[in-house]
């Protein structure tokens, strides 16, 4: 397929999508950073972009933002080809890698440089500084900021142009727990009004709470893309069961097995894997059977898979 055909193809699929990537590839010398990546970010979603270090997340984002030229493949951002970043970058806010500003300038002055360069309204700077929690520190030099404050200023710069698409690479880097919580709420607010967000993070629990779309890549290739529910739906839950007396554990294990279930010991607990279906019904059956044999349960609860646990299990499977 020629580059023009690929671009046209990506564009045709781009209706209703903030980002469409088809076969995107990037080589740095002999190293393949991104390998024929194909994915789509629908308009209005908060898309979590996850993968281990070196998976190609930052390189992919850099290509979408015109910083890095792809070796092959095509993409559209907000309906425009990657080959013409000036057609869409004005509608995109981005923070890629660490926030880079001029240390001798204040936070507000840095935003003024960015706004002037992009042709954005400088009158919005105080409001954006307040939005990211830097209203009181806007007059301080960037060089005096903590890493969390620098990160916030990076987000502020990304928000200056009232962007339709926000591309954030590890936005919670350097933030304290309160800052992470603020960031999560901020992303949630940004996602309203048909805005789209593509956000990468190593803190998967944060993504789980805020993302409704997931893209999982490893070694430059796609492992999963789709709704977060769909990703998590493929993961199996388990039940944790413990008897009042440790001496009853073997009898309890026999009862569980008699229900046709697999039980693995884990400390004082038995962990019962649930392939699919009714976790609650299974818990009732185990509880009833234990009571009938005179075993009192001290613990019985469902362990739902987390994004992190499922992500790690997928990566382990991929390694195999």
């Amino acid at each position, binding site marked *: 397929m020629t580059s023009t055909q690929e671009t046209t193809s990506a564009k045709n699929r781009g209706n209703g999508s903030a980002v469409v990537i088809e076969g995107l590839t990037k080589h740095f010398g002999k190293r393949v950073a991104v390998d024929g990546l194909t994915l789509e970010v629908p308009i209005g979603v908060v898309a979590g972009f996850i993968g281990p270090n070196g998976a190609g997340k930052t390189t992919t984002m850099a290509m979408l933002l*015109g*910083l*890095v030229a792809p070796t092959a493949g095509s993409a559209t951002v907000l309906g425009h080809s990657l080959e013409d970043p*000036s057609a869409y970058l004005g509608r995109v806010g981005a923070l890629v890698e660490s926030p*880079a500003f001029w240390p001798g300038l204040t936070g507000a*002055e840095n935003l003024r*440089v*960015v706004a002037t360069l*992009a042709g954005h309204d400088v009158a919005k700077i105080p409001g954006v500084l307040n939005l990211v929690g830097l209203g009181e520190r806007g007059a301080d030099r960037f060089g005096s900021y903590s890493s969390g404050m620098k990160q916030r200023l990076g987000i502020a710069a990304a928000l200056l142009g009232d962007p339709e698409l926000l591309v954030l690479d590890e936005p919670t880097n350097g933030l304290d727990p309160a800052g992470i919580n603020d960031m999560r709420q901020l992303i949630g607010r940004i996602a309203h009004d048909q805005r789209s967000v593509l956000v990468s993070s190593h803190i998967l629990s944060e993504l789980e709470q805020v993302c409704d779309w997931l893209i999982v890549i490893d070694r430059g290739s796609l492992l999963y893309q789709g709704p977060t529910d769909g990703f998590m739906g493929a993961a199996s839950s388990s039940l944790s069961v413990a008897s009042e007396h440790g001496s009853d554990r073997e009898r309890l294990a026999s009862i569980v097995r008699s229900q046709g279930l697999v039980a693995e010991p884990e400390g004082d607990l038995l962990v019962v894997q649930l392939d699919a279906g009714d976790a609650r019904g299974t818990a009732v059956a185990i509880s009833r059977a234990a009571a009938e044999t005179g075993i009192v349960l001290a613990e019985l609860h469902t362990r739902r898979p987390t994004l992190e646990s499922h992500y790690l299990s997928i990566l382990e499977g991929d390694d195999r």
Partner: protein
Amino acid sequence: MIRALRAELVKVLRARVLLITAAAIVMFAIGGAAIVLTTAEPATSAAPGRGLTLEALAQAGGGTEIFLTAASFAGFFVFVVFVGAFAIEFGRGTFRTMSLRQPGRLRLLAGKMSGLLVFAAGALAVTEAATWVAARFIAPSQDVITDEWISLAGLVDGIADFGAALLWVAGYAVLGMTIAVLVRSVPVAFAVAIAWAGPIEHLLQDAWDAASRSFPGLLLEAFVAGGTPDVSALRAGLTVVLYMVAGATIAGISFSRRDMTA
């Protein structure tokens, strides 16, 4: 490009930068005028082709000639400043920040250069005026009569000297930008610039006759000095312009084609 130019001016037109620049201008004006005037000798005792004579300083353009002569000693400083101004944008990753807002790389580079040159032009104009004023105060102590300085011919010479100084600064600016864009590293860019403009050009000048007519740093020195026995000011200026065109072309191609990974 205009937005990039204005953004660059936002960075430099700050109280802190302006105060530092003003202090440097005052020091340069007083120091430069004093050095040039006190080292000038009568035409009868001056070595041919070396420095300004007291008689030349008394002519209409003498006041601004002092500025140009003093500026010629600062070429190395100007060169290093411009190398640093561009290289540090790579070192800090701020070219990446700027590229996200101005994806037209050539416009970004040209805008940044234009902004710096606008600032430099303003600083040069103020420096020229300040040096002229300082020289008028110091000149009587050296028996230099300055009546001719305040004349239409003096103004014309002053404008011509300003133009020469601006081309001289622009030459160093483009060469500095080219080195910075090619090596993309502050320490390496400084090392290359200092090594080339310092020992390499001047050592080769001693060993190779054509060096004075060929190397950009030596040509810039010759141009701002009004020519040397080896090369005229006109030829030096034209060759410098060719270097500037070549440097800007190379820097532009490199900046627009290479990935912005820093």
